[in-house]
């Protein structure tokens, strides 16, 4: 099952602190949404409000068109995968996964069958009789996922579910999450502070900052055409060149006022925008690319970072003309 979520002018204040500031967001049924942002940006607060663990100070949440005001978590069509898994240590995996069905009064044989099917879906077939302490972190996370999905929620909420896993396992779980979501069609709302994870799994990324939505869109759009400087630098490394009435420290590059944003992979030895000659400070090997730092001749203090091809051979001190293959002009932060 699946449902659309409509968040309308939602605010959450704790005393004088504002955790969420009039946030509005329309989520389509079956969409994989990632709420992304630094810690304290309000993404977890928003997730808790959708799950019913707190009531908003102002605003409304509609799930499948139904107003959720005053509806406790147990009566909402949502379930949550928690960061710390929150499995029941005294129950077998089958009983863990079947717990929600038991609370809904489903008979024992039917819920055992459903629980085994859900465990199979997450790749834990044949382990129904095990207990959580016998599992690895990744397996526990799968059980938590199976448990939350077993009650056929309309909306699945995932609170940094992969935060405790190592890099390799995290990549693998991202692929599986994406595949499971595509198979079930349930609306997924996933919270993370890892922009790579967000880009790997999201249909749409909602980038949050200081209790507000900073930017929202498909991964490529948010990365390549960010609306704000915050989005640009949160989604990946950027070079920022201040631009005032057509003047930059590197000389007159283009007209306008703001901040010229160039990603390291967009700096090259040829391209449409000439940045002038620069001296190579150092070069570090990063596997897929080499990370180079340049000091432009016109403004040696303005260090430019570039990702150069693996095979590049350059000695520090070499001077060469730099170009940008793409760039953005964004409003400077106040």
């Amino acid at each position, binding site marked *: 099952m699946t449902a659309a979520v409509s968040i309308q002018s939602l605010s959450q204040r704790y005393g004088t602190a504002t955790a969420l500031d009039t946030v509005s967001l329309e989520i389509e049924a079956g969409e994989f949404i990632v709420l992304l942002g630094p810690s304290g940006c309000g993404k977890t607060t928003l997730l808790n409000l959708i*799950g019913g*663990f707190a009531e908003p100070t102002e605003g409304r949440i509609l799930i499948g068109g139904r107003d959720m005001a005053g509806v*406790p*978590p*147990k*009566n909402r069509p*949502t*379930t*949550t995968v*928690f960061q*710390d898994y*929150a*499995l*029941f*240590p*005294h129950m077998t995996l089958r009983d863990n996964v079947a*717990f*929600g069905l*038991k*609370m*809904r009064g489903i008979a024992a044989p039917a819920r055992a069958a459903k629980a085994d099917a859900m465990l199979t879906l997450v790749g834990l077939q044949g382990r129904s009789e095990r207990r959580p302490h016998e599992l690895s972190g990744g397996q526990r996370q799968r059980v938590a996922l199976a*448990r*939350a999905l077993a*009650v056929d929620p309309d909306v699945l909420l995932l609170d940094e579910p992969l935060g405790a896993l190592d890099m390799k396992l995290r990549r693998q779980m991202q692929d599986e999450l994406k595949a499971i979501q595509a198979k079930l069609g349930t609306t997924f709302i996933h919270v993370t502070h890892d922009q790579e994870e967000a880009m790997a799994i999201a249909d749409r990324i909602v980038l949050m900052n200081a209790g507000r939505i900073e930017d929202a869109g498909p991964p490529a759009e948010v990365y390549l055409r960010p609306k704000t400087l915050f989005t640009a630098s949160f989604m990946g490394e950027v070079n920022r060149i201040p631009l005032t009435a057509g003047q930059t420290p590197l000389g007159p590059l283009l007209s306008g006022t703001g901040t010229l944003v160039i990603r390291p992979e967009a700096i090259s030895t040829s391209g449409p925008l000439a940045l002038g000659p620069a001296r190579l400070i150092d070069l570090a090997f990063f596997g897929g690319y080499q990370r180079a730092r340049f000091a432009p001749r016109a403004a040696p203090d303005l260090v430019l970072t570039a990702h150069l091809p693996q095979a590049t051979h350059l000695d520090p001190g070499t001077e060469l003309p730099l170009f940008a293959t793409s760039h953005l002009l964004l409003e400077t932060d106040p």
Partner: protein
Amino acid sequence: MRALTWAYMAALYAFIFLPVAVLVTFSFQDGRLPVPPLQGVSLRWYETVLSDRNLMAALGNSLLVAVVSSTAALFLGFLAAHALARVRLPGSVLMRGLLIAPMTVSYLIIALGLLTVFNQTGIRLSLWTAGIGHVVINLPLCFAITYAAMGDQQRSAERAARDLGASDWQVLAHVSAPMLAPALAAAFFLSVTFSWDEFIIAFLLTRFDVTLPVEIWSMLRSGLSPATNAIGSLVFLVSVSLVIALELTIFRRAR
């Protein structure tokens, strides 16, 4: 030096266990007085004790009071601990303090206070009133043990249970209580042993039906007899069995 430490340990254990050893030894006395010398080994005092209707009734009463009052104390203590551990209330520190405070009050004072209340309100003294007294002394214990055992793991599991559709009572029954089972059992068995041994409250708050310690006390008034040693040994046996059972089941598993 090494010999000295061993001697010290032996002396320590002798100091603790000599009274019990003497009590048990002279419960087998083949004579009328439980004092040295041991005149021979006999089980006749056990026979006397086990065929004594009053004593056996008192033993039954003691078990009943211990189990019922401990169950009540555990139930109330667990609910209070759960509430104070989960919900932030104004003055919860004060409430916690007030719940534990009866531990510091002497049993005699508690018994006198309850006695006054029962007299004023016209409640007749019975095993129930003694049981109420035992709930008063054991509730702080049950509260303290279960409160200390509540951690973040339970908190997040309870949150997950609520998210999956459990009502408050279902959360308590299916998640909180099973996760705290070792602490709950420890609190229960400690309560049972305290209630089982308790004399002053039981003495002041019972009238016709009495608990075992009160019955033993009335036996002692008619002078020393190996029969009191025999019943004392039986009481000791029950307490020791409880402690051993506790050690084997709960504390071992907790490790």
